[in-house]
C-alpha cells in the first residue's frame, strides 16, 4: 500500500475490543427469559431402520416439556441439495444421527430425559468408504433422491449414492497423452476433518405472537441462514429475523445449513417459547457437518520442453450422510481442475458421494487445499521426471493474466494478479540461511506449492452497505457480513475512514446485526467479505459524499462541480472558508434563517460481480465470455523441514508464503497468515476423523462410529507445535475494481501447506506421500516401502553414535 493512505494499509487496532476487555457476547452466551433447553438423541448405528421410539419415561422426568421425533417434521431441508431430515425419519443414516429431541425447562432435565428414550432399530448394511458406496451392490443411502429439490447447477444421480457430478471437458485428452513425454498418475487421499471452531454450535429461537420467527445463532452468514430457513420452512422473509452475535470461529463449518431449523420448529410447537440448543464439543462432532473426505485420482502429462499438455482426473468427495453443501464443493474442485496452470486438454469428473458417516460441508479453502495437495504433488513429480527445477517448471506453465484461459475456458483479466512472482519469491525466501542438520539421521528438505483461489459463489452473489451520519458527525456503517474473527469489520472501518477522510474512532461498524436491520449480503465465505463489502461501502461513501456536495452547492449557490469534498467536509474550491462539515449536514443543513437544505445523510452502495457467468453442464466451459469469480488471489508457499529417520517425526523449521494482493491491515493479515499456516500444516500432519473403514475393530467399538470425537483423539496444534519461523510477504499487486486494490486472503493462507510439505519430503528423501495426514508412523511405513535403505542407514548411524 502506498503511504498516501492514512488508514488503509496501516495497523489499525481491531474494533472488537470487548473480546479482550470483557463483555463480548456469542450465541453460546445468549439467553432469553422463560427459555427452554433442547437435547438431541443420536443413533447408535451407522445405517438402520427406526422401528419404534418410546419416550414415555422421558416425559416423566420433572421439567420435561416435550419430546419430538422425525415423524413430527415430515419434510426435508437444504440449500444446494435439500437432502436432510429435520430429525431422522424412517431410518438413521449415520452413527450419531439425531433421531429424537427432548425439550425441558433446564439443561439438566433435558439431559436426564434424553437417556430415557428407547429407540428400536433394525440395522442395515452400510458404507463407510467412497469406493464401497460406488459399488453396484452398495446400500443406497438416499432412496428418495429423485424427489429432492436442488439448485439448477447440481446434478444428482437417483438410484445411486452420487449426490452430484461435475464434468470438465476441454481439447482432446487421449491424443494429448499420446504426445506427452512424461506422465504421472497417482491417487491422493484426505480424511474427513473437523473444523473444531471453539464455539460449539448454538441456536436460540422464538416465535412471536404475530408469527415473526427470531433466531440467534452461531453462524457465518446471517442472510444465507435466512434464505435457507425461509425456503425450507416456508416462512416469508419479513417474518423471519436472523440475529448475528459474535461467532466463535467458523472456517466454513458454519456456512451452510446449520441447525437453526431445530429450535425454530421446537418453539413453534411449544407456543413460541424460546428454545436453546447448545452443543457440547463432543455433540458438535456428531450433529454438525464436518469437512468432506477426498479421493483424488489424477493423470497429468507434459512434454520434454516442460509444457503441461494433458490432465485427466476423477475427484471424489466423501460427503457423508448429507451432502447439502458438499455438492457445491464437488463442483468447485471440478471446475478448478488444474490449479493455477494452463493446460489445453482436460478431462475431469468430480463427484459428491454419500457414505454412512457424519454429514459434511465446506471448510476454509472450499476444496482448494485438497486440489492443490494433489495437483502440486503431480507438478513436483513431473518436474523431477523431466529433470527440471520444480519452480522453473511451474513458471513455464503458470497462468498469464490477460492471455491464459482456465480449465473452464475463462480468460483471466489483465489485472487478475500475479501468479508468477510469488513462486520466485518463495524460492528466494527459502534459500536464505542454510544450515546442516546436527545428527546424521536427521535430513533436511524444501518444498513449494503455488496456489490460486477466488470465491466460489453464484454469479449473482450481491452485497450492499449503508453509511449514515449521526447528528454529532459520527458515522454508523451497516453491512450484512458475519463477524467470526476474520477482522473484516475492522478493515471496513479503515476503508470508510479513508473514503470519508475521518478518524476510525468516530466510525462504528456493529459486530452484531439482524437481517431486518442491515442491508443484504449473500454470504460470509470464500474470502469474499472484505472484497464485496469493501466495494459496497466505498460506493456508499461516494453516494454520501455526493449528497454533502449537493447540499453545499445549494447553500453556497455554486455549481456542484465547484464543491470539493475532503477530510469530512465539502468546501467551495479555492474558498476553504466556505465549507459544510459532515456534522452540519448530518440531518440536513440549517442556515442561519432556519431554512433546512437536504435531509439525513444516508449513503447506499452495493456490489454485484460484473460478468460472472455459469458453466455448461456437459463440458464445464463458461457459457459465454465472462468469469467464475470477481477476483482470484494468487500466491505460493514453501517449507523447510527436518525429518528424523528414526522416528518419522517432521519438524517445520520455516514456513514462508507470498500473496500477490496488498493487505488492508498488516496486523489482521498477519493473523490470517499465521493462523492459516498453522492450521494448514496441522491438517498436513495430524488431523483426521477416524472411522473403522476396513472393519478392523469390529466388536471392539460400535460399528460405524466416529472414533475420535475429542481433543485427545483429534489433535489440534498447540503453541509448541507451530513452525520455528513463519515468514510472509504481500506483493501489493492491485486489481482495478477491488477495494484499494485488495483481494481476499483468509482461505488462501491455508492452501499450500500439505502440498509444500509433501514436496519437501520428496526433496529430502525421494519418498512421495499421497495421503494425509503425514503422521510419523505413516512416514516410516512409506519410507519402508519406497526407500528401505534409508531406515537401515539411519539405524546404523545410531549404532555408531551409541
Amino acid at each position, binding site marked *: 500500500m502506498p503511504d498516501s493512505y492514512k488508514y488503509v494499509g496501516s495497523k489499525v487496532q481491531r474494533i472488537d475490543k470487548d473480546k479482550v476487555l470483557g463483555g463480548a457476547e456469542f450465541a453460546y452466551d445468549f439467553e432469553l427469559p422463560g427459555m427452554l433447553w433442547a437435547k438431541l438423541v443420536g443413533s447408535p448405528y451407522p445405517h438402520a431402520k427406526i422401528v419404534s421410539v418410546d419416550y414415555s419415561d422421558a416425559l416423566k422426568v420433572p421439567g420435561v416439556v416435550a419430546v419430538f421425533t422425525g415423524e413430527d417434521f415430515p419434510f426435508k431441508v437444504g440449500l444446494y441439495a435439500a437432502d436432510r431430515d429435520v430429525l431422522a425419519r424412517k431410518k438413521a443414516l449415520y452413527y450419531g444421527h439425531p433421531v429424537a429431541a427432548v425439550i425441558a425447562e433446564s439443561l439438566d432435565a433435558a439431559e436426564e430425559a434424553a437417556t430415557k428414550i428407547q429407540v428400536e432399530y433394525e440395522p442395515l448394511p452400510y458404507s463407510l468408504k467412497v469406493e464401497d458406496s460406488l459399488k453396484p451392490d452398495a446400500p443406497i443411502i438416499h432412496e428418495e433422491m429423485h424427489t429432492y429439490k436442488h439448485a439448477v447447477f447440481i446434478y444428482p444421480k437417483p438410484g445411486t449414492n452420487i449426490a452430484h457430478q461435475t464434468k470438465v471437458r476441454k481439447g482432446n485428452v487421449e491424443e494429448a497423452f499420446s504426445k506427452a513425454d512424461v506422465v504421472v498418475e497417482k491417487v491422493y487421499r484426505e480424511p474427513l476433518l473437523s473444523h473444531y471452531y471453539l464455539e460449539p454450535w448454538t441456536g436460540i429461537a422464538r416465535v412471536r405472537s404475530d408469527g415473526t420467527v427470531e433466531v440467534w445463532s452461531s453462524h457465518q452468514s446471517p442472510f444465507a441462514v435466512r434464505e435457507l430457513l425461509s425456503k425450507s420452512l416456508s416462512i416469508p422473509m419479513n417474518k423471519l429475523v436472523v440475529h448475528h452475535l459474535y461467532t466463535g470461529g467458523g472456517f466454513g463449518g458454519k456456512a451452510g445449513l446449520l441447525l437453526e431449523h431445530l429450535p425454530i420448529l421446537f418453539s413453534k410447537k411449544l407456543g413460541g417459547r424460546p428454545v436453546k440448543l447448545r452443543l457440547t464439543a463432543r455433540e458438535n462432532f456428531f450433529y454438525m457437518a464436518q469437512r468432506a473426505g477426498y479421493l483424488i485420482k489424477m493423470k497429468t502429462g507434459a512434454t520434454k520442453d516442460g509444457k503441461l499438455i494433458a490432465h485427466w482426473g476423477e475427484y471424489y468427495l466423501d460427503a457423508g450422510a448429507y451432502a447439502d453443501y458438499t455438492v457445491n464443493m464437488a463442483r468447485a474442485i471440478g471446475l478448478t481442475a488444474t490449479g493455477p496452470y494452463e493446460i489445453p486438454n482436460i478431462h475431469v469428473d468430480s463427484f459428491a458421494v454419500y457414505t454412512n458417516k457424519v454429514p459434511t460441508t465446506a471448510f476454509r479453502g472450499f476444496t482448494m487445499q485438497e486440489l492443490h495437495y494433489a495437483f502440486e504433488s503431480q507438478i513436483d513429480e513431473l518436474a523431477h521426471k523431466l529433470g527440471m527445477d520444480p519452480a522453473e517448471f511451474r513458471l513455464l506453465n503458470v497462468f498469464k493474466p490477460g492471455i491464459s484461459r482456465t480449465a473452464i475456458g475463462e480468460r483471466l483479466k489483465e489485472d487478475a494478479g500475479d501468479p508468477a512472482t510469488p513462486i520466485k519469491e518463495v524460492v528466494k525466501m527459502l534459500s536464505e540461511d542454510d544450515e546442516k542438520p546436527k545428527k546424521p539421521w536427521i535430513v533436511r528438505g524444501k518444498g513449494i506449492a503455488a496456489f490460486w483461489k477466488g470465491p466460489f459463489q453464484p454469479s449473482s452473489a450481491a452485497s450492499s452497505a449503508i453509511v449514515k451520519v449521526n447528528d454529532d458527525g459520527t458515522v454508523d456503517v451497516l453491512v450484512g457480513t458475519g463477524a467470526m474473527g476474520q477482522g473484516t469489520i475492522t478493515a471496513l472501518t479503515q476503508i470508510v475512514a479513508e473514503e470519508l477522510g475521518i478518524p476510525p474512532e468516530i466510525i462504528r461498524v456493529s459486530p452484531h446485526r439482524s437481517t431486518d436491520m442491515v442491508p443484504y449480503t449473500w454470504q460470509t465465505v470464500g474470502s469474499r467479505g472484505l472484497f464485496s463489502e469493501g466495494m459496497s461501502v466505498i460506493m456508499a461513501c461516494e453516494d454520501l459524499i455526493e449528497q454533502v456536495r449537493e447540499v453545499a452547492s445549494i447553500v453556497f449557490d455554486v455549481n456542484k462541480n465547484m464543491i470539493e469534498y475532503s477530510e469530512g467536509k465539502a468546501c467551495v474550491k479555492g474558498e476553504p472558508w466556505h465549507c459544510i462539515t459532515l456534522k452540519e449536514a448530518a440531518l440536513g443543513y440549517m442556515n442561519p434563517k432556519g431554512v433546512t437544505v437536504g435531509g439525513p445523510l444516508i449513503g447506499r452502495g452495493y456490489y454485484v460481480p460484473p460478468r460472472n457467468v455459469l458453466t455448461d453442464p456437459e463440458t464445464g466451459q463458461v457459457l459465454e465470455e465472462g468469469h467464475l469469480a470477481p477476483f482470484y488471489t494468487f500466491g505460493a508457499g514453501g517449507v523447510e523441514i527436518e525429518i528424523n529417520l528414526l522416528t518419522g517425526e517432521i519438524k517445520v523449521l520455516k514456513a514462508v508464503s507470498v500473496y500477490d494482493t496488498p493487505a488492508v491491515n498488516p496486523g489482521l493479515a498477519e493473523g490470517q497468515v499465521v*493462523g492459516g499456516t498453522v492450521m494448514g500444516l496441522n491438517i498436513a500432519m495430524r488431523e483426521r476423523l477416524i472411522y473403522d473403514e476396513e472393519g478392523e475393530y469390529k466388536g471392539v467399538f460400535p460399528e460405524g462410529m466416529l472414533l475420535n470425537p475429542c481433543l485427545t483423539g483429534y489433535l489440534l*496444534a498447540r503453541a509448541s507445535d507451530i513452525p520455528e519461523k513463519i515468514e510472509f510477504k504481500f506483493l501489493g499487486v492491485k486489481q482495478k475494481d477491488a477495494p484499494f486494490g485488495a483481494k481476499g486472503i483468509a482461505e488462501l493462507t491455508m492452501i499450500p501447506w500439505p502440498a509444500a510439505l509433501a514436496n519437501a519430503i520428496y526433496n529430502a528423501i525421494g519418498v512421495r506421500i499421497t495421503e494425509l495426514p503425514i503422521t510419523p508412523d505413516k512416514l516410516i511405513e512409506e519410507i519402508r516401502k519406497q526407500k528401505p535403505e534409508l531406515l537401515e542407514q539411519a539405524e546404523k548411524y545410531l549404532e555408531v553414535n551409541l
Partner: protein
Amino acid sequence: MKPVRITLTVNGIKRELDVMPNESLLHVLRDRLHIISVKGNCFRGECGICTVLMNGRPVKSCQVLAPEADGSEIVTLEGLVKNGEPSLVQKAFLEEFGYQCGFCTSAFVLLGEWIINNIPNPTEEQIKEVLNAVVCRCTGYQQIIKAIMKAAQWKREGKS
C-alpha cells in the same frame, strides 16, 4: 445430594453460594454468576478455554469442583480492567492483534497475567509451554506470544 455452602471472592467481590457437591466451578461462574467471559467447550479438561485464575494460578474451571474452590479468590477477564484501565496484558493483546474470534481470548489473557506475574523475563519457549494448556483454532498463537512478551517487557519497564 445436598447443596454445600461455599464462599468465593470473584473479581474482588465476596459471594456466598449454595452449590451442589458435583458442580463445577465453571458452572458456578457461568450459570450462577453469569460471568460470560468464562467459556466452555469440551468440559473434560482438554481445551482449556474455561481457564480462570484461582488464588492467582490458572485452573481449568470445568475440572474444579465448586466445593474445592471454597474460600478461594477467582479472577476472570472482567476483573482485569481496574478503574476503567485495562491491564498490561489486555493492552498488549489489543496492540499485537492477539485474538480473532475471541472465544479463547479470556483464557489466554489470564495465562498471560500469570506469566508476567511469575516469570519476569519469559522466553518464547517458556510462554509456549504455558500456552499449551489452551487451544486456539484461529490465531496460530504467534500474535498471542508477541502480546505476552510485550506485556512482560512493559511490566519490567514499570509501565502501568
